[in-house]
């Protein structure tokens, strides 16, 4: 098996997969042709055996003439019978060669496909979020699945068949050469010309094919979007708009399909073989009349030429597939060679995460944009503190959390953990100490058990159920028929938002981080969910430094420190009472939180302005 993981460097971290890959294969072409280096013996066997089988098949064809000559001269003689017997033996051996070769070749190619796919996934997975922000996950998926398939198809069957074609051209040429020098040379020259023209032709059709594939992908995407959002389409009575959108792309597809049809209709490289076969026919007749050809040889020549022209229609198709394979490997290679703005330090250092954390003049713009979403933030978090982040949508709260996971590096400034800059740490060191519960919870479509123990694969059943209990989700899980083995997500049951959130909390509890990041911007849920969530979150924040994005007044009041954000800047920092006293924005916000029991001046049960 191909891949490079599992190796550890001296520093104890995994090796940089991307670096290894680039070093090993150097370029897209290097990567593509590496297929043959990966399983050299199998491919070598294939090449030899295909050579043999092509030789025998061509020989069989050539023997027709010989047999007929015997027939003409000697009648139904032993020589004739011997030739026929020879032909049959050749056919059988050729069949055996072709079969075994095809088998070995295809196996080698499926292995290459498997290995390349794995390689691609591992390298892509290792890219930072900067890559995933700018690349559509559907497109990456299609690269990893369909385009790898096409790369394999370029090798098997395309290269295999092209190779067989070339073998038969060469062998036929040699045979014809033996009969007559001029025919041999002409065949050789015209097939070279033919191949060149076919390559040019393939380069014309190839792009249209790719355009067609893209059209079809667009068509599916448009259609899926409309059916997923059918409620919205219907409630705005916008069917016609959607139908027009679809119609536009469908029409594009039809036009491209027509273009491709037109090109393949007048497949002009075929004309070369037509003219050339006719010429050989005339020339052959002349040679027979001249007396330098026997009739048998003439027939052999004709039969050989006919066999060659049957390759006619195969070659361009194979060439198109080969080109597609090469182009795809270029695309995949470019994705794999993505220049990542976030790099691992040469000599990673470690730090103590249960100490002070400080933000020094942090500014941040998401890679590939220049809009600063965080603007010159500075603040310090004491060990064990509970920090609350508050601010409107888009003010940068989640972004702060992402920086602390080192999903991105700040554009300017430094985040220091106990005095050590985060950018000098390896990401896996950071992430083994920090855990985030995101806002839009992502769970894998796997069992609940697997999801909860995601951070700790060797967790015992007790640990898992303990975590679930603390996260207030155990009662629900145990009410399910399959309990912890219930599969959730696409392939199983669907959980409500509140349930998902608590599964994620259980997951975070098991990972037992030093620093907890919790993104909980959602607040209005029904009573059951609210109660359970509150308790689960309390459990989670116990005994560790935590930074929580929240709208919950309870959390705000209990926080040691509240950071109020607005458009990427800090408005104020302080405790609940401090901010209530001095910060107008905070007062304003609090007025809109549902508050009773007189803890704030304005009781706003009515909520009317």
């Amino acid at each position, binding site marked *: 098996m191909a891949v490079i993981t599992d190796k550890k460097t001296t520093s104890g971290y*995994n090796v940089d997969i991307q670096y290894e890959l680039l070093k090993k294969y150097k370029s897209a072409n290097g990567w593509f042709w590496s297929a043959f280096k990966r399983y050299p013996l199998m491919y070598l066997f294939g090449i030899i055996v295909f050579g043999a089988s092509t030789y025998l098949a061509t020989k069989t064809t050539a023997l027709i003439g010989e047999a007929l000559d015997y027939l003409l001269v000697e009648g139904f003689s032993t020589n004739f019978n011997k030739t026929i017997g020879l032909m049959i033996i050749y056919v059988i051996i*050729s069949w055996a060669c072709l079969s075994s070769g095809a*088998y070995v070749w295809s196996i080698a190619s499926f292995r290459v496909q498997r290995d390349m796919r794995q390689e691609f996934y591992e390298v892509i997975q290792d890219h930072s979020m900067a890559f995933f922000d700018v690349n559509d996950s559907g497109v990456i998926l299609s690269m990893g699945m369909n385009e790898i398939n096409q790369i394999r198809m370029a090798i098997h069957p395309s290269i295999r068949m092209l190779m067989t074609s070339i073998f038969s051209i060469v062998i036929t040429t040699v045979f014809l050469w033996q009969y007559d020098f001029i025919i041999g040379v002409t065949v050789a020259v015209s097939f070279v010309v033919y191949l060149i023209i076919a390559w040019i032709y393939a380069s014309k059709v190839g792009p249209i094919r790719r355009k067609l594939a893209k059209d079809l992908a667009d068509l599916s995407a448009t259609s899926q979007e409309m059916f997923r959002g059918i409620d919205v389409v219907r409630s705005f009575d916008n069917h016609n708009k959607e139908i027009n959108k679809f119609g536009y792309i469908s029409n594009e597809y039809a036009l491209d399909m027509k273009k491709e049809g037109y090109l393949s*209709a007048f497949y002009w490289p075929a004309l070369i073989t037509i003219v050339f076969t006719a010429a050989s026919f005339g020339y052959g007749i002349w040679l027979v009349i001249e007396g330098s050809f026997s009739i048998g040889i003439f027939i052999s020549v004709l039969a050989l030429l006919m066999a060659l022209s049957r390759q006619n229609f195969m070659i361009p198709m194979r060439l198109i597939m080969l080109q597609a394979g090469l182009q795809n490997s270029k695309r995949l290679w470019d994705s794999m060679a993505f220049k990542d703005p976030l790099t691992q330090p040469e000599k990673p250092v470690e730090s103590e995460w249960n100490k002070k954390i400080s933000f020094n003049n942090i500014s941040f713009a998401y890679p590939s944009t220049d809009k600063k979403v965080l603007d010159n933030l500075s603040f310090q978090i004491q060990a064990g503190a509970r920090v609350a982040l508050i601010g409107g949508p888009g003010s940068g709260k989640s972004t702060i959390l992402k920086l602390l996971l080192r999903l991105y590096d700040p554009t300017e400034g430094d985040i220091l953990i106990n005095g050590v800059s985060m950018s000098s740490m390896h990401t896996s060191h950071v992430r083994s100490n920090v855990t985030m519960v995101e806002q839009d919870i992502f769970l894998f479509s796997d069992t609940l058990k697997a999801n909860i123990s995601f*951070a700790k694969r060797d967790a015992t059943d007790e640990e898992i159920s303990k975590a679930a209990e603390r996260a207030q989700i155990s009662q629900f899980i145990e009410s399910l028929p*399959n309990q912890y083995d219930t599969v959730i997500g696409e392939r199983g049951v669907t959980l409500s938002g509140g349930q998902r959130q608590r599964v994620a909390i259980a997951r975070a509890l098991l990972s037992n981080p030093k620093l907890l990041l919790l993104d909980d911007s959602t607040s209005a*849920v029904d009573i059951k969910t609210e109660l359970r969530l509150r308790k689960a979150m309390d459990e989670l924040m116990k005994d560790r430094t935590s930074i929580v994005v929240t709208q919950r007044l309870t959390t705000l009041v209990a926080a040691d420190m509240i950071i109020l954000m607005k458009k990427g800047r800090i408005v104020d920092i302080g405790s609940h009472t401090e901010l209530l006293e001095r910060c107008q924005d905070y007062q304003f916000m609090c007025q809109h939180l549902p508050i009773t029991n007189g803890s704030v001046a304005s009781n706003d049960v009515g909520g009317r302005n």
Partner: protein
Amino acid sequence: MVHGSGRGPGRAFDTIKYKRARSTKVLVSSLWKYLKRYIWPIIYSTGFILLYSLTSLVTPFIAKLGIDKVTGTSETFSALIPLTILFLALTALGWVFHSISVRIMSKMNSKMLHEVRMDLYEKLSFSDMSYLKNEQSGNITARVTADTGELATGVQLSTSILSQVLLIIGSFILLVTTNWIIALISLAAIPVAFLIAGVLSYFGRRIILRVRRAFGFVSGKMAEGLSGIAVAKSFNREEELSTELRELNQKHYNYSKQFGMLMMFVMPSVSALSYLLFTMIVYVSGWINKTTNVLSLGDIYLSVNLSQQFLFPIIMLAMSFPQLESAFGAMDRIIDIFEAKRAVSDVHDAVNIQTTDDSVHFKNISFAYEEDNYVLKDIIFSVNPGELVAVVGHTGAGKTTLFSSLLTRFYDIEEGTISIGNQDIKSVTQSSLRQAIGLVTQEPFLFTGTVMENILYGAPNATKEDVKEICKKINADEFIDALPNGYDTLVVEGGKKLSSGQRQIITIARTMLADPRILVLDEATSRLDAYTESLVQAAQRELFKERTTFVIAHRLSTISDAEKIVVLDHGKLVEIGSHKELMDLDGIYADLYKTYYVHQGLAEIDVDVEDLEPEELEEPAKNVSPQMIGMIKGDHMSGKNESSLNKEETRKHLEKMSPEDKQKFMKRMKEQKKLK
């Protein structure tokens, strides 16, 4: 060349043995409706194919003539020049005929494909909500993309079958006229060819199905790894994920090996068959000549040539049957859609909805999505024009069903009526009804396009200034300005760079801009912070002051100042009235209010979590990007049943919770209050 196949989603279908509902005859006659429009192209194309087949038959004959001429007799070369030229002319002409035919065909085929697709898409987009909701969007899309593509392939295949049949028959006749024994030998190749094709389609179908399924698993795993990439990174779990992928990848490889084995058999056997056939013919010719000496070398050459021309079309033909069958299957499914009757359609004398009276009346409404499984029972109430109605109730109480699905007539009610003013909503056009009602759905859904385009979706004539004004009112402009390109920022993959609050607020802006007469907000502010929510509410109150508004919500501030509060519980309307009235009533709402709404803020809640009603499973929320669904499809067809099965069992479990238990729960909560 095969168009439109092998690309895009939904290809898994063709490998599953599909039971058709219609006979081939019915299908062909329905297809004829489409094909009729292209009668001339079809005739021309067929004509040229005929000519092409003719030249293919004649060329070997010329070669035979040439051979016969030069055997024995002393011809001069110049006498044979015309023959050479004829040979050249015929092959070239054949090429021209073939090309013209393909050209006509591909023009017609692409046009037909486009038209079928459009008709189908239109039909589907107006089809019943229950169908669209129950099918996965990927499956529906497969109807429009894959099935139509298959149909086009089928049509194209039919013409090539025509030319193959012609070639077979023509070659055979020529063979018979040359020598009947040789013709008989060639005939023997037919069963062998069909045997090979049969093996291919029998085993091939199974193996391909297995390979596809394994491929689907790899694809699903990869899709998931990619969409969960941030989580994998956060937990340092990349290695485990690639190990899991590697295992599936290996499985896929193992099945692919079987496929390799099949290929090893089929392709070489076909070519061996052709070699054996001509060897046999040469041998038999010799044997015939030994006895009678009737066959010239030209005849033998002709036989060899014709036998090849006979064999390959047969193999092609045998191999195209499965493809043809799957084209018929596709056609069958397409016709299913065309012939489906719409459950919700305008009555023949439907009028536009009146514009004067915005009162809404629900009369004796009962509703079930599935037979007898009622989610709403006997709902009766009326709403005065301009009233703000708040709706409360637990998840699954039927709120969305009543206000998002029935009021908008996504589904028709069997029992009871809904009227707006004095018009039954069944008597007005759906189009005017939906223009009158603005709905913010529970799941925020955005289209691919800019933020601006998304907000303009329901009001194409509004200006950009209008958009900005609305956004300012609901505090959306603050974060929209913060986006990399402001209002021109592209929403990709359903808005992956936006938080769900941001997505939600865009959907609110979209509906507000559309300026409907009646507004339905289905938990529309659930993902917003309280501050932003209050701004949305203020804007809503100002903009929709005099209009009927339904708000489904959990937050107290939203509910308590509504003119009417509707409390739904398990599909029943249990209480209705103003906040004050319901508090005086001291029923369910008052309980909820005291235990929960009051405490939505700061205070500790003194209800033990264990005392709560067990949780239920919710309806699926779709969180995967459209492309991804397409990619991972395949293997999920079986998944659907699995999920509903699990749900079924859970539901049973939940039913054990009797009404008494529920009352006990309520009582306990009250007692706890008193103890305090």
